[in-house]
């Protein structure tokens, strides 16, 4: 302390103020003790000024106290008071005629000096404190990584921190004390948010500048925040979030404003990218050809696209918050539930599956749906369905089946008709011819031998034609099939084969035989006919077997031979042999009757054709 004290004493002594005080005291002493020091009467110098020696002397005692207090600090002020007191005391006790009054006066002087000192001290302290505070603030703002600047009531920039320097590219020195804060953000002069705050602008006024991009700060009273794009900053401009709040003095008056900024370019671009991708997803969702809808575990629809609305005949609005019950029948619901249970249990589900929906207008639509489980936080949350309307396709398919059936029926009818015509008409006519010829030849007319022979030859030829016609008729449609049934027809055909090709064919019947629907009998007969014909023509077989099994609800016919067999291709549809084509055509007809046709063949081992039809 002693060194500190001596240090400060030294400093004080060095200060010119000290000497000013000393001089003033010196003059004060002289004026206080004029007779004693200068042996003169109070100088009348000051009378011209209207001041008594007394007043002047007081001035030269008071002033140094205040001066010392003001310029040299409270300690100097107190010391000065002490010195002033020391100066005045001798006079009181030694010279003054009225020492109590003098003491009283002195006390007054000291008091005033003390008070003045105190006041100076407070003021100085206040000032110092304020200075410290200010310096602190500047330090904080300066050192903050948040770009900030402060303007005063005159819109001059009083603070411009390092962060905003690097953000804006404007150095502190260039902008401080200027009103060019707009330069950092805009191309032309306009108020920044801080300017508006400082002017105490109303919300409306602020809105005119920033539109709906700004709003009142919820944290700070009187502050506003906004987001805006500044094309001047950075390479391609930056998105900034800025907050400006007023700086108020102790009375609440606005004396300045502080604005802080944040570079939100990255976030903004990410937001925009997200919006864009969301939009493009939405576009995709909306414009998708397939119906897409998502519903929760209870079946409440959460989102649906236009195609989905079209599928079920409701509007998108009607679908939102509707339940899938709206367009699913009891049966469809049952299927839907089954699928969903499987999905939740992670069981495999064959996708897509066929489902029927009821449209708003009551019509039924058929669609193929792929359903997926949506999991959130590890828990099943919803189901996404993507469906395609296949009603038309199905109808077309059904139509095709119908047409195929019709064509087949017509074809068979035609064959039947022709067969009958040949049989009842042509054959009969030929028989008539034969008989007439016979009669001609038997008539007791004298036919020369040669002519008779010729006629008999004609007779023979006509018989051959008759046979051919009969055969055509039978091949087209053996009436035995219609009149007596499948088994007699099969018996007949096996006998024919034996007669025509020398192929031994056995016929075996299993189960209780019965008549079947004409369609089935005809088809089965045709298949056997075709298979045996192939065997006879191509297989070089010696034996063939036909087995007919009558079951309760189906009939199975197997035709096998011990011939050379043939190479089975990948699928029946590519069978190259012309003869086999007949069987390929049969497959369609078998499917029409909801049956199945299978051909098995191994080179050198023979061929087996098996057909099964439910009846």
């Amino acid at each position, binding site marked *: 302390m002693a060194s500190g004290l001596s240090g400060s004493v030294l400093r004080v002594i060095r200060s010119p103020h000290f000497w000013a005080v000393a001089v003033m005291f010196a003059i004060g002493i002289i004026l206080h003790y004029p007779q004693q020091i200068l042996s003169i009467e109070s100088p009348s110098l000051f009378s011209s000024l209207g001041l008594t020696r007394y007043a002047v002397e007081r001035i030269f005692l008071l002033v140094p106290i205040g001066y010392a207090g003001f310029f040299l600090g409270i300690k100097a002020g107190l010391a000065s008071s002490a010195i002033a007191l020391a100066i005045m005391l001798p006079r009181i006790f030694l010279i003054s005629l009225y020492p109590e009054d003098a003491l009283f006066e002195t006390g007054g002087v000291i008091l005033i000096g003390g008070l003045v000192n105190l006041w100076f001290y407070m003021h100085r302290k206040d000032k110092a404190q304020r200075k410290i505070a200010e310096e602190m603030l500047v330090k904080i703002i300066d050192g903050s990584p948040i770009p900030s600047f402060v303007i005063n009531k005159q819109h001059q920039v009083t603070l411009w921190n390092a962060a905003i320097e690097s953000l804006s590219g404007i150095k502190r020195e260039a902008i401080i004390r200027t009103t060019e804060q707009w330069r950092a953000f805009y191309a032309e002069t306009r108020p920044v948010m801080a300017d508006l705050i400082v002017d105490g602008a109303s919300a409306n006024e602020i809105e005119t500048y920033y539109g709906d991009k700004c709003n009142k700060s919820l944290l700070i009273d009187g502050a506003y925040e906004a987001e805006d794009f500044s094309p001047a900053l950075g390479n391609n401009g930056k998105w900034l979030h800025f907050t400006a709040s007023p700086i108020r003095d102790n009375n609440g008056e606005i004396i300045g404003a502080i604005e802080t900024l944040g570079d939100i370019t990255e976030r903004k671009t990410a937001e925009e990218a997200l919006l864009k991708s969301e939009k493009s997803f939405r576009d995709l969702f909306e414009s998708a050809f397939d119906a897409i809808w998502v519903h929760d575990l209870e079946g409440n629809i959460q989102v649906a696209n236009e195609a989905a609305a079209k599928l079920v005949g409701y509007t998108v609005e009607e679908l939102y918050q509707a339940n899938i019950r709206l367009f699913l029948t009891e049966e469809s619901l049952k299927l839907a539930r089954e699928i969903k249970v499987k999905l939740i249990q992670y069981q495999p589900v064959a996708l897509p599956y066929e489902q029927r929906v009821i449209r708003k207008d009551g019509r039924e639509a058929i669609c193929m749906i792929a359903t997926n489980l949506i999991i959130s936080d590890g828990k099943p949350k919803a189901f996404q369905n993507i469906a395609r309307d296949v009603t038309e396709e199905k109808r077309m398919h059904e139509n095709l089946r119908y047409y195929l059936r019709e064509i087949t029926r017509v074809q068979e009818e035609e064959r039947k008709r022709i067969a009958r015509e040949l049989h009842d008409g042509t054959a009969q006519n030929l*028989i*008539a011819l034969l*008989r007439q010829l*016979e009669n001609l030849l038997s008539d007791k007319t004298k036919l020369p031998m040669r002519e008779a022979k010729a006629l008999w030859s004609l007779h023979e030829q006509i018989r051959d034609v008759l046979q051919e016609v009969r055969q055509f008729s039978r091949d087209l449609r053996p009436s035995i099939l219609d009149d007596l049934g499948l088994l*007699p027809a099969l018996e007949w055909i096996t006998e024919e084969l034996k007669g025509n090709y020398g192929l031994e064919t056995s016929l075996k019947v299993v189960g209780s035989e019965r008549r079947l629907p004409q369609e089935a009998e005809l088809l089965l007969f045709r298949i056997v006919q075709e298979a045996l014909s192939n065997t006879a023509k191509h297989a070089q077989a010696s034996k063939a077997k036909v087995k007919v099994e009558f079951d309760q609800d189906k009939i199975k016919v197997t035709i096998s031979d011990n011939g050379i067999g043939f190479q089975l291709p990948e699928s029946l549809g590519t069978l190259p042999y012309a003869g086999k084509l007949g069987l390929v055509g049969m497959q369609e007809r078998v499917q029409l009757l909801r049956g199945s046709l299978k051909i098995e063949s191994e080179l050198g081992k023979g061929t087996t054709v098996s057909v099964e039809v439910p009846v």
Partner: protein
Amino acid sequence: MNETNGLADSGKRQPRKEITILLAEDHVVVRESIRRSLEREPNFKVVGEASDGEEAVEMAKRLRPDVIVMDISMPKLNGIEATKQIKAFQPSAAILVLTAYDYEQYIFPLLAAGAAGYLLKDVSSRELISAIQTVHKGEPVLHPAVARKILKRFRHAKSESTGEEASDLLTEREIAVLKMAAKGMSNSAIAQELHLSVRTIESYLGTIFNKLGVGSRTEAVIQAMRRGWFTLEELS
């Protein structure tokens, strides 16, 4: 002409000089040709021509021909149906059915209906004439192999056993003749076997036909089978 009425007739059926024939065929030219060829035979008399089944039945009723040659497929009433109906009032008529198929499945119903035999439609006139003569004489019209197959079927057919024994109806001689006829022996063969003349055999057959109410050998044999008088084994 005799107004015989089947079973009630006790008179012997003799192979007469003249055989009355009824033709039933819807194809005009065929029918005409047949008629022309039949008329060439000295002891054949075509007494009527029918062009449909109903007409055939009606004419048969009226004319009582010995032999009826009938097409199986005719309008209004088919051959099998007509056969049944004619047989109902004239069991002694011998009906030959013209068929398109000689398939046994088709033949069986014919014979079950009471036909004496069948012929293919394109049968020659000569064969037709021969068949008419044969059936009238009581000779077999069916080919033995076919006959066998048919008889097999009748064995499985519903038995029409009336409880009567063969001996109740026929004499021992007649049974013997019938048995041999069932075996497929020709009249001359039977005659030889029994050391009788062919005429006698024919006469026996006539009586048997009358007693059984049939018009041909085939029918007689079938009747016997139905009544359970013979077994197939006995006949082989």
